[in-house]
Every structure is written in C-alpha cells, then in structure tokens.
C-alpha cells in the first residue's frame, strides 16, 4: 500500500468514525450493505476510468453509455423478449466497440481524448433519448430475467452481488495493471509515450486497449445499474456518473497527466465518495448540498496531498542539491 492509499484509508476511517459517533445508524447492517451496493456499482466503472486516466486520457462518455446501453438492454429483453444471455453479450459487445472507437479516434486520428469522449457523451445521450422517444423504459414484468436479476442485484450471505463483483474486478484489474506486461506498458505510455515507442512498444494498441477495457467495464456496470434502478429514463440515467468516476480515480491517486495510479486507490476513492454521500443523508445535511460536500472534500484532499508531497521533498534537499549541482 503506497503513501496515497494509506492516507486515503486513514481519511476514510476518520470520516466513518466521526459519522458513526454522530449517528450510530451509520454502522447498521442495512446502511453498510446499502453502501456496499453503491460502492460496487460505482467502483467497477471507476476502475475503467482509472485505466484510461493512467494513459493520460479521460472518458467523459461513461454516463451516456449507461443510458444508451441501458435502453438497448431493456428494449431487447423487456420489449423484444430476447433471452438475457444474448442481450448481455450484445451490451458487452457494444461497450467494447464504443471503447474501441474512442481508442482508435485518439490513437489513429490523433484527436484529444477530452474531445472524443465529450462527443461520445453528447451523441450517446442523444441516441438513447431518440431510441425511446425520450420515454422511460421499465423492467416491467419481463419474463425470464429472474436469474440475471438475482446475479446483478441479489445478495449472498447478505452481501450485495455488485460489491462481490467489484472485488473480483478489482483483483483481476489489479493484477493486470500492477503485475502484467500490459499494465507496465500502460504506465510507461502514460508517463512518456515517446520513450515507450522508442522501446518498441505498440503505444497505440496499448492506449486503445485501455479504452476497450473502459468500455467493457462501463457496459458491465450498465447491467448492474439497470437492475439497481429497475428502469431507464434516457435523459437522466447515469447523468454525471463519469464525474464520479473521475473524482474517485483522482482521489485515489491517478494523475490527470497520466502514468500514475493504482486499482486499490481507485477503489478507496470510490469508498470515500460513497461514504460522503451517505453521510449527507444520515446526518440530515440538506441533500442539495451533496455535490458541494463532495467537491469540498476532493479539494481538501488535493491540497493535503500537495502539502504532504512538498513536506516529503523538503527535508531531503540532498537529492535536489546533487541534481542541481549536475
């Protein structure tokens, strides 16, 4: 566990302790499991966002992907009666293709990730609203979805499946990012794309790979989110969720300059965000202040991190001196 992750964990424990002291309901099983569910839902696509941020990119389209894939999934299952395994495959394939398109636009055509995914945000949202004529699609009484509903939104031993899914995804992506050749390439490309290319790395393929993984994880999250809300209203479903993901990744130590971050950090970032949301509810703070609390904590976190980084480098001017003398 690095310095950032440790600091984040301490912060989480401190905030949780204060909240629990003010309202013991915070530690009730119902509340904890409710939070675990939300952490699972938000954590999975935040990891995808983190991978993209590590390449030096960003994905603003996540929330709109949820809306578009959500209406596609419900239309296939609830309206057209397609078997859910097929619908699931279609949704995952679409997520993969969207990620691939983003990646290729960034690497092959040299467009900026911000611009590409901003267009995605607008296009997918518009497509979702057009697809349903701007009306909400519900799960309704769709036949044969019970199995998937249990998988996506059920609980085992009281633990929500979304949380278990996050643990699995985090473990797999943790190994991919921190132990595999691909993960090392991600960090190298994010930090110094040119040196990576001069080392024979297919930098375009590596970056595209991150977008594809991001798209896949977003598609996977779509299914969980659909069963969480039971209906998709295309104009509001998933609104701002890309910003939750970016916030979690940044809180978790991903640098928007690329080349920095960890899966554990992103998960802890998600945990902190969800605790903050919960705290607003449970302490009776007006829920309209929700975003303001989140923004404030992120700002304080960024300031504290900056201070710590400076203090850490201050007592060791030897290194600086040698570098300066050379």
């Amino acid at each position, binding site marked *: 566990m690095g310095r950032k992750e440790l600091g984040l964990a301490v912060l989480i424990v401190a905030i949780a302790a204060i909240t629990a002291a003010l309202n013991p309901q915070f530690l009730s099983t119902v509340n904890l499991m409710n939070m675990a569910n939300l952490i699972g839902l938000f954590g999975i696509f935040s990891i995808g966002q983190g991978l993209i941020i590590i390449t030096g990119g960003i994905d603003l389209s996540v929330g709109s992907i949820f809306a578009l894939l959500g209406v596609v999934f419900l239309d296939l299952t609830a309206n057209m009666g397609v078997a859910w395994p097929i619908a699931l495959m279609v949704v995952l394939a679409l997520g993969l293709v969207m990620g691939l398109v983003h990646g290729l636009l960034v690497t092959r055509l040299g467009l900026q990730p911000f611009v590409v995914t901003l267009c995605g945000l607008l296009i997918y949202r518009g497509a979702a609203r057009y697809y349903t004529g701007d009306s909400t699609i519900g799960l309704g009484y769709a036949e044969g979805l019970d199995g998937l509903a249990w998988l996506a939104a059920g609980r085992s031993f009281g633990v929500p499946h979304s949380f278990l899914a996050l643990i699995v995804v985090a473990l797999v992506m943790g190994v991919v990012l921190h132990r595999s050749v691909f993960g*090392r390439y991600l960090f*190298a490309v994010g930090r*110094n794309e040119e*040196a*990576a290319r001069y*080392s024979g790395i297919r930098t375009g393929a590596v970056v595209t790979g991150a977008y594809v993984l991001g798209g896949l994880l977003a598609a996977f999250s779509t299914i969980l989110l659909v069963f969480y809300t039971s209906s998709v209203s295309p104009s509001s479903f998933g609104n701002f969720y890309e910003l939750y993901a970016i916030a979690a990744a940044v809180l978790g130590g991903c640098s928007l300059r690329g*080349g920095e971050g960890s899966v554990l950090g992103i998960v802890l970032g998600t945990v902190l965000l969800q605790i903050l949301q919960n705290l607003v509810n449970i302490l009776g703070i007006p829920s309209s202040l929700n975003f303001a609390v989140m923004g404030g904590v992120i700002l304080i976190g960024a300031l504290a991190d900056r201070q710590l980084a400076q203090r850490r480098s201050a007592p060791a001017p030897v290194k600086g001196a040698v570098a300066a003398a050379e």
Partner: protein
Amino acid sequence: MLLELDGIGKSYPGVRALDDVSLNLTAGEVLGLVGENGAGKSTLMKVLGGVVRPDAGRIRLHGRDFPALTVAEAGAQGVAFVHQELSVFDNLDVAANVLMGREPVIGNRLWGGPLRLVDRRAARAQVAPLLARLGADFGPEAPVATLSIAQRQMVEIARALSMRARIIILDEPTSSLTLSETDRLLAAIAALRAAGTGIIYISHRLGEITTCADRVTCLRDGRVVGHLARGEINHATMTRLMIGRDLKSLYTPPATAPREAGGLSIEGLVTEAFPDRSIDLALRPGEILGLAGLVGAGRTSLARALFGVEPALAGRISLGGEELRIRNPREAIARGIYLVPEDRKRSGLVLDMSIAENVSLPDLPGHARAGLVRGASEAKAAEAQRQSLRIRAPGVAVNAGTLSGGNQQKVVLGKWLAMRPRALIFDEPTRGVDVGAKGEIYALMRGLADRGVAVLMISSDMEEVIGVSDRVAVMHEGRIAGMLERAEVDEPNILRLATGQQPERHMATAEAV
C-alpha cells in the same frame, strides 16, 4: 573589478556543494568555468543568480558587498543568464521574448492607462539595435517558433543586453549548436567582450574554452582546484585539473579490423525531411562509422528512418544481406537495430521509472511468464547491466531521473545491451555527459564494435567524431557529401564536406582506397 566571489560555501545535508570558492571577473574578459558534472558549477552560478543562498562567504558586485543575493538584486546588479535549457516562449515573437516583463506600454492618453496595451512598434524599435549588435540574421518581428536553437540563443543574449547586463553567464551554450553556429556565437561573445561586458563561459567543450577564454577557473568536488592564465589554457591542463589526473586517452583503439560483409547497408534511402534526395551508405560490422554534418543536414532523419520512427519513403535497408522492412521501432528492434536517441530524457528513458523497469522495457515479454512480469528476472538483468556498465546508482530500484547525464545514458545503453544488438545507432551519445563518463561511453562503443556490432555515431562534437570514428561519412543537405577514411579524417575535410565543398585529397587516400 566587476565581480569578486570570496570564500563562498554552501552545504546541503550530507553534501558540501561549494567549499571556500573564490573567483573574480573584470570588465571585458571571458572567464572559462570548467569542471565535471557535479563539480559545483551550476550551484555556484545559482548563488550568483540569487537562486541559492550561500552559507559562507561574500559576493562583491561593482564594489558593493552582499552576503547573499536575491533574484531581483542579481538582475538589478546586471547579472544575466543564458541558460543551458533554453527558456524562450516559442509562441511569441522575438521582441516579446526580449522584453518579457518589461513591455513598453502605449503612452497615448486615449489608449494607455488601465488597459496597458503593448506598444509593439516601440518594442521592435528597442530590440532591433540589440539584434544588430549581435549580428543576428533575423528581425524583432520573427516568430521564435521559426528560429533555430542558435538563433534562440541570440534572443536570450539580446534579452541580457536589453537588461543592461554587465555580467553574462553562458551555461553550456553550444551543446546544441552546429560548428558554424558556434563560430557565430563565439564572434558575438567577442563583440560583447570588446564592449566591456564580463562573461562567464561554462562548457564541456574544451576547444571552445581554449578559443574564447582569457582565464579559466576549474572546480572539482565543490572546490576551486586551479586557475589558468591565457597562455596555460589547453586541453591537457584543463583535463588534468578537472579529473585530478592525466587522462591517458579518451579514445580506445579498435582491437580487431572490421569485416567487409554482413553489415547494415542502405541504398537509395529517401527520408521525409529531404524527399528529393537519397542516401547510400554501407556500415561494416565491427566499425564505428561517424556521421558528421551540420544540424539539419538530415543525420537525425536518417537515424529515425533506420529505427522506424519516421519510416523511409523509399529505398532498401538490409542487414547481413537480408532486406528489411522497417515501419516502426518495434520492427527495427526485432532485427537487432537499436537507437540511442539524441534526447534521452524525452525518447530514451521513462524518468519516473526505475533503472530496472527502463532496462527491461524493450524486452518485457522476455521477462514475463503468462503475461505477468517477473520482477526478479528484471532486476537480475538490470543489475548485470549496472555492474558491467558501471552505472553509479545505489541499486536498480532507483528512478532513472535521479541519475546524472552520463549514468542516464548508460541506462539507455543498458536497455539495448541486455538484448542482442547487430547495429547500434548513437545520436549525439555524449551530449551533457562529463569527461570521465565520456571516456567510458567511448570504450563501450568500441567494445561493441569489437564484438562485431555495426556502430553508427551521429555527432556534432568534432573532437568526438575525429577521435572515435574509424571512418566518417559527412552529410550535407540530405545526402552523403563524402566518405573519409581514417587517414583523411580531420577537421578541415569534414567542414568542407559539411558545407558542400570537396575535401583535399591526401596521398594516403590513394593507398586507403
């Protein structure tokens, strides 16, 4: 006396960066400041610029004593820097750069006042005479983006002049300049000296110091180890002071003769930089072929084409008789053609990664099982390189960015030596590398050649080209202007070819051919 430094000391925890350093500078003289990397030159200059506060000694400027300077005081006392890494704004024009922070404002009552509009005409009028004094071949309205590195340096010197600088410090001013540009810079320095400016000239290129310095002060390990007067300045005396012993020879002679067949052969190669020129060149295994020429002659384009960074538009590249298609660095690396790039911080290394991670980067699948990196395998390979290249670092887990220039260059080399090189291209291999490490890098290059690797060395450092190469190819405007055999390699011949003239043929040529 413009400047006297008396007993300057500066300590950092564990390091005595400067210890009782004294030197002086009078108006109208050039003081050469030499020393290996880490000797304390830059720290001393930071003391002068007010960036670093000394903890002992006294700075006397124009007869006024200062225990320490602030940046503002240094500027006010007429101390100006021309930095090693250029700090110009290439999105602005020359006049804006020269007058940055001191822009003339339109004085008109209607337009002046709170809007503080910049008076562009006045700015250009102020800057034009400064450029003329330096003999610059560009005007104040030229966008800096269109200028060469040498011209940008002129912009920085003009900025120093515009601040009425009486002491100008040039830190490695020629490390990116071609020979003719260096000459022009040295001429500008001579003009400044004649006008009474005091100049401190820091350079690793001892030839330039010999040409332009009136006196030399040498630093080693934070101390002044000697002063040389005009008549005593030469390579041998300076080198002896810098490294504290006689340097027998920087250059290692070849142990074996190059073989004729099986090298890297280039026929009719066309690069993007010169689409109407083609290059033919044969590189023998076991030789070091120097590639000389002016900056912009197409040497780096050739290297980039061979390594697949900018694939060639046409032409054939073959290695050991086998024709290759090189469309990207990956394909070049797969064939054993490696490049040690010009800008190691940008293209050679990931500075935030460890030595081990940098060394394994081009061959990571070779250090992995089932797609997972084996840290032990990486560390072992990197440790082997650290020892054989004598990389001065506490271990292979330290970040490459913390190393000195010479040691960083060794890490770049370690990347390739951990694999199987057949042809190795060095682009400016010793830029920013101190004398001691230079010798080691030359010995490594020679060792590679003796093992049968074909070595191509691009260099703008004339001493290096002449000292290291077995043969020298000279490029001029996108083509090979001529090939000089060992016996005919000398500075006048290289210069003639580099500027598009014919070399003088010696008698030896006939024998060599």
